């Protein structure tokens, strides 16, 4: 391979990025050194196995990636705002939409989801950590360094440019030589392994780590959604890993799984990648449904309506999602019968989804609705997701899909469900649980500005794209009106869409400002129960102590904390004598980080086909595994005195009527 272009050159924007990367890195290094923070960073964050801290790191990284993916989006929209634009060259544009898609799904949505898993699930089920805290740290660092590997590609080696799912044979050596495509493979392969481990971790956590008195049928719906999503992860991420490995064999070792020659079959790639890719979108949307279930019940001061039906519909979605993948390529000519089966399966998945909407509505019905920031995002979600779901049903009608496929109609549809469903859901979750994790309420005024710019921006950006689809505009065109002389009248709507993209960008800036402002000036939550919540996470102080629950909570039914509060108010709550016992906790470990660094080195080596480096990295991975096997000092006990000290400090600081636990 030609490695003469190790650093990407020739584009002023890239030079600008080079300079800012160097400046930011220097600033961080100087800051850490000047304030002697290196030890703090290592002890408190890099080696941590605490699910709350890992959750915070996931959240920070996903917001960072939202920024990166958002910049990609804005660059694309600038390019398309006017016809015959020369802002970006074809290949640059292709790189940008490839990284936009990859980053938004794998490095923004996934970690944001894992942030919520980590920050909330153990607290909600009355656990002191996840089932495998060490593995949890491994997952995070694999994700983070996988994401970094893909992200450096735009300054070193060149970015991938074959689309976010890199259809073969375009993604094969014949059409995409060079390191760009390898960056894509290794970046998402490494982080994908982390995702699979997180899936395993949360299935076990939810099944085995609940406080002994919590039955599955009393478990909060967010935890149920995490279970459904994690089970789907277990089913499909192995396919993802294997598919990427096959492409690696093609590209690195001259294999012929998906090539045009030698008996390769590109259609197999399309099938395999969507067998993962379709359930993947349900994996990310299910936890958003879970978030909304919590928010609606809390802010309607009412039990969730149709709990059993909610659980059943989530399980149904996660199962039927395995049988819809062909709807991404009805136009591949699988035959009428195959198309009909997958079209109907796709429509079927709309049924449980629709049922969930009805159940949320009737949770609010005869409730008392408080319009807080999380609730605002829910209220934006309902109409947005209904319309997105409807266009999804339209797309599912196979023959109609022949007309929408790969057009801007499709683009508008999946942005509407992914932004309207997933992003709104996760943001709602962030607003909802921020006071729990950080003990700070996010500023209301800035939040409203962010909310409305996001909303207006969203509709202004994506509604015109449905129309553009009907006008015949296909996706992934870096320019239009330029060669064959067709003026299809796409220009005005494209301009409007670009305005919308900018508004969403402004909305994001408001949110960053809101978070920073609130950290400095925001209202502190001293009650631990910022929203008058219903589930266990609100029964402990904010932020929770390292062991979460000093005494494992007793759960008598759904919404355990809500009813305990009612009993406490009535005075009928039987407060048992507090008797602490030593708490068993895992030790911090640097091995997850070091292992991920070795993976990074291996990935970087294979990307450039430097075998010595790739193999050295893999050897490093094995050494860290080996070292861990001989590590005997992996856990410790928190003494009763220390628990008493911590609890007294937290409780005195907290509200007076707090007597639970």
């Amino acid at each position, binding site marked *: 391979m030609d490695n003469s272009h190790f650093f990407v050159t020739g584009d002023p924007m890239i030079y600008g990025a080079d300079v800012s990367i160097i400046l930011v890195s220097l600033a961080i290094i100087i800051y850490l050194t000047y304030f002697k923070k290196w030890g703090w960073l290592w002890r408190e964050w890099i080696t941590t196995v605490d699910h709350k801290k890992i959750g915070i790191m996931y959240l920070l990284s996903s917001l960072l990636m939202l920024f990166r993916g958002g910049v990609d989006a804005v660059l694309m929209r600038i390019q398309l705002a006017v016809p015959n634009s020369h802002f970006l060259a*074809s*290949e640059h544009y292709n790189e940008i939409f490839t990284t936009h898609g990859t980053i938004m799904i794998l490095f923004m949505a996934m970690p944001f989801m894992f942030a919520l898993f980590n920050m909330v699930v153990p607290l909600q089920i009355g656990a002191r950590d996840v089932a495998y805290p060490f593995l949890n740290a491994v997952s995070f660092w694999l994700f983070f360094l996988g994401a970094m590997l893909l992200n450096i590609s735009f300054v070193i080696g060149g970015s991938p*440019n074959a*689309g976010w799912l890199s*259809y073969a*044979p*375009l993604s094969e050596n014949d*059409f995409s030589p060079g390191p760009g495509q390898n960056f894509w493979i290794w970046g998402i392969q490494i982080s994908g392994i982390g995702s699979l481990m997180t899936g395993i971790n949360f299935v076990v956590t939810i099944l085995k780590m609940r406080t002994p008195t919590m039955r599955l049928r009393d478990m909060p719906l967010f935890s149920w959604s995490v279970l459904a999503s994690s089970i789907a992860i277990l089913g499909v991420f192995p396919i993802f890993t294997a598919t990427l490995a096959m492409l690696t064999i093609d590209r690195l070792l001259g294999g012929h799984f998906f090539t*045009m*020659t030698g*008996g390769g079959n*590109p259609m197999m790639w*399309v099938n395999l990648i969507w067998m993962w890719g379709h359930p993947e979108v349900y994996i990310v949307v299910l936890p958003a449904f879970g978030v909304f279930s919590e928010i609606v019940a809390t802010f309607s001061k*009412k*039990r969730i*309506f*149709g709990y059993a*039906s909610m659980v059943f519909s989530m399980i149904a979605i996660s199962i039927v999602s395995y049988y819809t993948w062909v709807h991404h390529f009805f136009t*591949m*000519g699988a035959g009428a019968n195959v198309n009909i089966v997958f*079209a*109907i399966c796709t*429509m*079927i998945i*709309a049924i449980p989804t*629709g*049922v969930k909407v009805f159940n949320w*509505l009737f*949770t*609010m019905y*005869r409730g*008392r*609705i*408080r319009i807080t920031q999380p609730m605002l995002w829910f*209220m934006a979600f309902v*109409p947005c997701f209904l319309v997105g779901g*409807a266009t999804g*049903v339209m797309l*599912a009608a196979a*023959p*109609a*899909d022949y*007309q929408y*496929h*790969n057009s801007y109609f499709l683009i508008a549809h999946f942005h509407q469900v992914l932004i309207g469903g997933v992003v709104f859901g996760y943001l709602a979750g962030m607003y909802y649980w921020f006071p729990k994790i950080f003990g700070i309420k996010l500023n209301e005024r800035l939040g409203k500005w962010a909310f409305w710019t996001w*909303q*207006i921006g969203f*509709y202004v950006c994506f509604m015109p794209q449905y*129309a553009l689809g*009907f006008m*015949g505009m296909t*996706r*992934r065109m870096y*320019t*239009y009106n*330029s060669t*064959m002389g067709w003026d*299809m*009248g796409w220009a005005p*709507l494209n301009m409007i869409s670009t305005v919308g993209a900018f508004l969403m960008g402004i909305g994001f800036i408001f949110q960053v400002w809101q978070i920073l402002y609130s950290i400095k000036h925001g209202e502190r939550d001293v009650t631990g129960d910022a929203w008058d919540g219903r589930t266990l996470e609100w029964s402990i102080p904010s932020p929770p102590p390292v062991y979460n629950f000093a005494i494992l909570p007793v759960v008598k039914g759904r919404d355990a904390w809500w009813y305990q509060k009612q009993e406490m108010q009535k005075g009928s709550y039987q407060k048992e004598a507090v008797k602490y016992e030593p708490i068993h906790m895992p030790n911090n470990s640097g091995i997850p980080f070091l292992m991920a660094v070795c993976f990074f080195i291996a990935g970087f080596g294979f990307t450039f086909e430097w075998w010595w480096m790739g193999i050295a990295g893999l050897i490093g991975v094995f050494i860290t595994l080996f070292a861990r096997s001989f590590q005997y000092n992996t856990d410790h006990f928190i003494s009763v005195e220390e628990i008493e000290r911590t609890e007294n400090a937290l409780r005195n600081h907290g509200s007076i009527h707090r007597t639970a636990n």
Partner: protein
Amino acid sequence: MNKWIQTAKLSLLAFLGTALLSGCDRSKFIVLDPRGPVGKQEYNLIILSVILCAIIIIPVIGIFTYIVLKYRDKPNNKAPYQPEWDDNKFLEIIWWGIPIIIVAILGVFTAKTTMNLTKPPVKDVDPIVVQVTSLDWKWMFTYPDKKIATVNYAEIPAGVPVQFILTSDAPMNSFWVPQLGGQEYTMPGMSMGLWLQADKVGEYFGSGANFTGKGFAHMQFRVKAVKQEEFNKWAKQVQKDSPVLTKAGYKKLSKPSLEKELSFSSYPIGLFEDIVNKNGGIYYDHMNHMGDHTTMSDMNMKK
């Protein structure tokens, strides 16, 4: 703040209104302006699905608005409050039932249309075959009956069903002429069939819909539907006036580049079959013949 939100809502509506009005010229929405039986069937299905979805969505948004307005947490709100009410079998049956019915209706029509589109749109007219090869980054059309080839434009007789036989000698693309009907992938090593038909004389926009790299955005082509006599005349003209597409000529044409519209008076015999086979076609059992009747028996033997 509230005032501001009102303003924001209004400006949003104004914005959307303008967006819709600016596009009111229906002829621009080519997908919604089909000019052939295939496109029309797909259009009908689109309209049906919009109506069925609207039946669900509009009432739900209505109910949602009503609930949010009525059950606000205000001190003087007299609306009933039943915090423990969380189950109603009758309601649950209704909202499981209605979507099931809607999906069933849409499912039946989807299945019907899907089956219909695998057949020629009209039975009483003899169809013609046009072979389509997507290249980096241009479209080549070969006419097995006329033995002529074109690049980046195709002429077809109006009122006659056309079976487009699709393949690719480059990464996977998708052949789409919105006003005639939906698209189908062009794939290396595969020959796929797509029935389309233009009812009226006219020029129709076509484009590649599946990303194929650097020159993808330039892969538009023209489909010109003319009267049968004119089509025959045009074919004769091309046979007489245009250069020959040789094997070497095709090799050059298939290299990554952009091309203008081109015509060729002939092409190497079995070109399309060779393209399919060299890209792995020999390994597949083809659903569709490759359109070239002279080499059909040849193909069968290879299987």
